[in-house]
């Protein structure tokens, strides 16, 4: 049902597009109603040239320079920030390497100190152990001496009693008194050196 309508529009549009020829003097007012839609209107071209030329001059000398300037400033700022960041990064890397070197040096020094301390400690230990051993030996010798002395004293203190017992026992066995000093001296001599008897 719409086909005739569409056809009518199409025909009119085609006629319009193909109407390239302009009748002489058909343009009214140098830019008003013209008979051909294709033929350029001089007044429209006048305003187009005027507007374009003005826009070009404005763009070239007034409008574009500030935009370019701010873009260049931004690019320079970004580049400067990137350079600063790069510099800071390299400084951080350098400082990090320096810290690592220092740490390595400190670790070496610490190791030396540890080794020295360990050696000193070992020497001190050896010294203390030696002294302790010496003291122990001295104490042991002292104790042995004391034991020997005590033993000798004990033996010395026991000897008269043993002599008395031996003399008493011999007197009982023999049935006669052996309390003479000669017997007593022989008993003392025996007790003093039992291995030399007989």
């Amino acid at each position, binding site marked *: 049902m719409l086909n005739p309508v569409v056809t009518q529009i199409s025909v009119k549009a085609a006629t*319009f597009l193909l109407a390239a020829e302009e009748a002489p003097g058909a343009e009214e007012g140098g*830019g008003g109603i013209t008979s051909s839609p*294709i033929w*350029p209107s001089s007044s429209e071209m006048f305003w187009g040239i005027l507007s*374009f030329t003005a*826009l070009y001059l404005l763009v070239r000398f007034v409008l574009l320079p500030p935009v370019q300037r701010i873009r260049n400033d931004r690019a320079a700022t970004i580049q400067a920030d990137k350079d600063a960041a790069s510099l800071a990064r390299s400084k951080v890397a350098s400082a990090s390497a320096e810290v690592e070197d220092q740490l390595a040096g400190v670790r070496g020094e610490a190791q030396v100190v540890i080794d020295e301390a360990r050696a000193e400690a070992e020497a001190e230990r050896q010294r203390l152990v030696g002294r302790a051993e010496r003291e122990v030996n001295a104490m042991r010798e002292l104790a042995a001496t004391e034991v020997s002395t005590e033993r000798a004293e004990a033996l010395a203190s026991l000897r008269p009693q043993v002599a008395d017992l031996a003399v008493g026992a011999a007197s009982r066995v023999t049935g006669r008194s052996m309390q003479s000093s000669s017997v007593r001296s022989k008993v003392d001599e025996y007790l003093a050196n039992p291995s030399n008897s007989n």
Partner: protein
Amino acid sequence: MLGLEYPPIENLVEWPNYFGDGQIWALNKIGIISLLALIIPTVMFLVSKKELVPGGLQNIVEGVVEFIEDQVIMPAMGAQGLKYLPLLLTMFLFIFFGNLFEVIPTFQMPANARMANPLFLAVLSLVVYVSIGFKAHGFAFLKDTAWPGFVPVGLRPLVGLIELLTVFILRPFALAVRLFANMLAGHILLVTFGVLCISVFTAGIIVILLPLTFGMLVLLTAFEIFVSFLQAFVFALLTAVFIDSSLNPAH
């Protein structure tokens, strides 16, 4: 039929003068749009802040400049083309804002759906790239175009003729017609679907088709915004390519 009253076709693109009838400075809707295509980008650039951390309008302004640099100049010409940024940026802005009025209510007419601006811009492009060619290579630019050394001698007259036609006529003609025809076709398409919507709305039972026609109108409006941008981009890009071909003819 269906109450469809398609407007006289001339009324879609030709507008009465507001003043200056008979004078070259006669001002009509197209002239107004051309002036607005000057004023709007100027105001945008002037109003946008210039701060190191961009925001809002400054983002858009710098985005447009970067777009022309990165998507038009660098692919077509490399860094040597950056000195043509003001020209190519102006072309892009002027064409884009001239086109954009196709979808702005009360205007609804792209300035480049009239032949004046596309023709002027195409001729300007021609003058620019030919001038640059002569400036870079002197008379050799014309000689190399008319008598190309990269083809066998027997073919040089024919190829030279084709090259001359291409450089001096076909390129600017194609630039102008591409922009003009695309915008005019888009404008007629929008008018057609607008008229269809009105007609279907007043045609009884056929009103059930209104969502379809109106949906198409909305879609085409969005599409025409894209076309406005695309045509501005293509025009600037081709101008950059032509300038580069003048600077480096061997390419």
